[in-house]
């Protein structure tokens, strides 16, 4: 096969980071830099201390070279995340409102832009871990609702979904097989009855 089997129908964590890096983020340039015409986008002229939006991967390059600070999204701070955690506790049937890529985005920012964060890294890391765990517990409970035709996972981030994928696919495909074989039997029964009717 021209493609490794572990790439089929599953995402590697590095791919999820890659996609997150394509999202736009605000930066605060520390120096001026002329605009760059890229293939899919244009990096505007940068002027010191004038906020601009650029793809995260560009922001990370500029940041690593000391050319900018990253403007941390308004949900990545202790107060906000603590409030989401309390919500998770209070509403056991619902996931709190967090961005689709909150886990990987915070992971990237915690490691690549620690000095831009509003709160100490270790405290942020710990509240993020708490949030992840409480949501994992909920997901496991929710999986009891799995059936053979569909299941809703709204509110989960891509990374959380991807972690569930291998398990869910195998369970749901098994259920599907059972469901189909049962239906097939029903069908066969009906046929037999039809034949009997004809003979009568």
């Amino acid at each position, binding site marked *: 096969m021209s*493609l490794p089997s572990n790439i089929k129908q599953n995402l590697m964590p590095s791919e999820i980071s890659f996609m997150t890096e394509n999202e736009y983020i605000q930066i605060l340039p520390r120096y001026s830099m002329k605009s760059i015409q890229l293939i899919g986008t244009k990096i505007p002229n940068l002027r010191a201390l004038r906020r601009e939006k650029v793809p995260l991967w560009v922001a990370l390059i500029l940041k690593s070279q000391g050319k900018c600070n990253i403007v941390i999204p308004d949900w990545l701070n202790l107060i906000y995340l603590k409030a989401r955690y309390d919500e998770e506790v209070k509403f056991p049937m619902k996931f709190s409102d967090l961005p689709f890529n909150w886990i990987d985005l915070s992971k990237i920012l915690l490691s690549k832009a620690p000095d831009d964060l509003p709160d100490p890294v270790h405290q942020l890391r710990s509240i993020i871990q708490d949030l992840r765990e409480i949501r994992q517990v909920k997901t496991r409970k929710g999986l009891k609702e799995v059936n053979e035709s569909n299941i809703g996972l709204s509110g989960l981030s*891509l990374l959380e979904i991807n972690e569930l994928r291998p398990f869910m696919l195998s369970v*749901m495909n098994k259920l599907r097989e059972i469901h189909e074989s049962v239906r097939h039997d029903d069908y066969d029964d009906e046929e037999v009855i039809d034949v009997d009717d004809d003979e009568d």
Partner: protein
Amino acid sequence: MEVDDILRNFDTEVGQRSQKPKVDLYTSLSRVMLNERMAPEILPYQKDLLDEVLSRITNQQQLLLDSHEYGDVNIDSGIITSDYKLQLMIMETDIERLSYLVRLYLRVRLSKLETFTIHYIRLTGERDDTKATLLSDEEQEYLTKYMGLLQSLYNNSILKKIPRELTYLDEVESDISMVTTPDVDEMVFIKVLRDETITIPLEDEDELQLEKDAVFVVKYGLISGYLNIGDVILI
């Protein structure tokens, strides 16, 4: 800021305002790649997007080469600052990132052609409109040639050594066809993009309500129509 910069900024700002909100190239290419990756069957080749991306990659690569040359020639003049180098590095990264997405997209498609070779030979041979949109010219040629290779491998190592009545590759035996086809009932993970809720009828008069931004695991066959018009994406 220089005058031409101001003008250029003005141009893009006006351009952005007059157009309806458009997804950028990265987003559309990532979506197209992921859809292809997660769908059990091959999806129509995204010709316009791929033509656009491939030609832009070629142009940008040329520009990068030229800029390096320009840098080498002017190395002692003081024009070449560390910023200049950094800009080229950003350009190169951009090229690599997009090339990777295109590469993965094409590789996924080739692997489907290799898995369901006979099925796609039949499908693209049947109807002209399928042929025109399902595969690119390059893929169509690859498929035909690959079929030829496989056929002669089968012939030389097996089929010509066994009785003639067995030499067909597409017979159906005890209800099981020899031709492997994509399983459209496979479960896929979807995300809903359309603003208005999509209602999908299920068995036993049930229905499935897909609201915007919702994430579901469903049978591929149930949503493949919405996938093709971009109302849902696979994740």
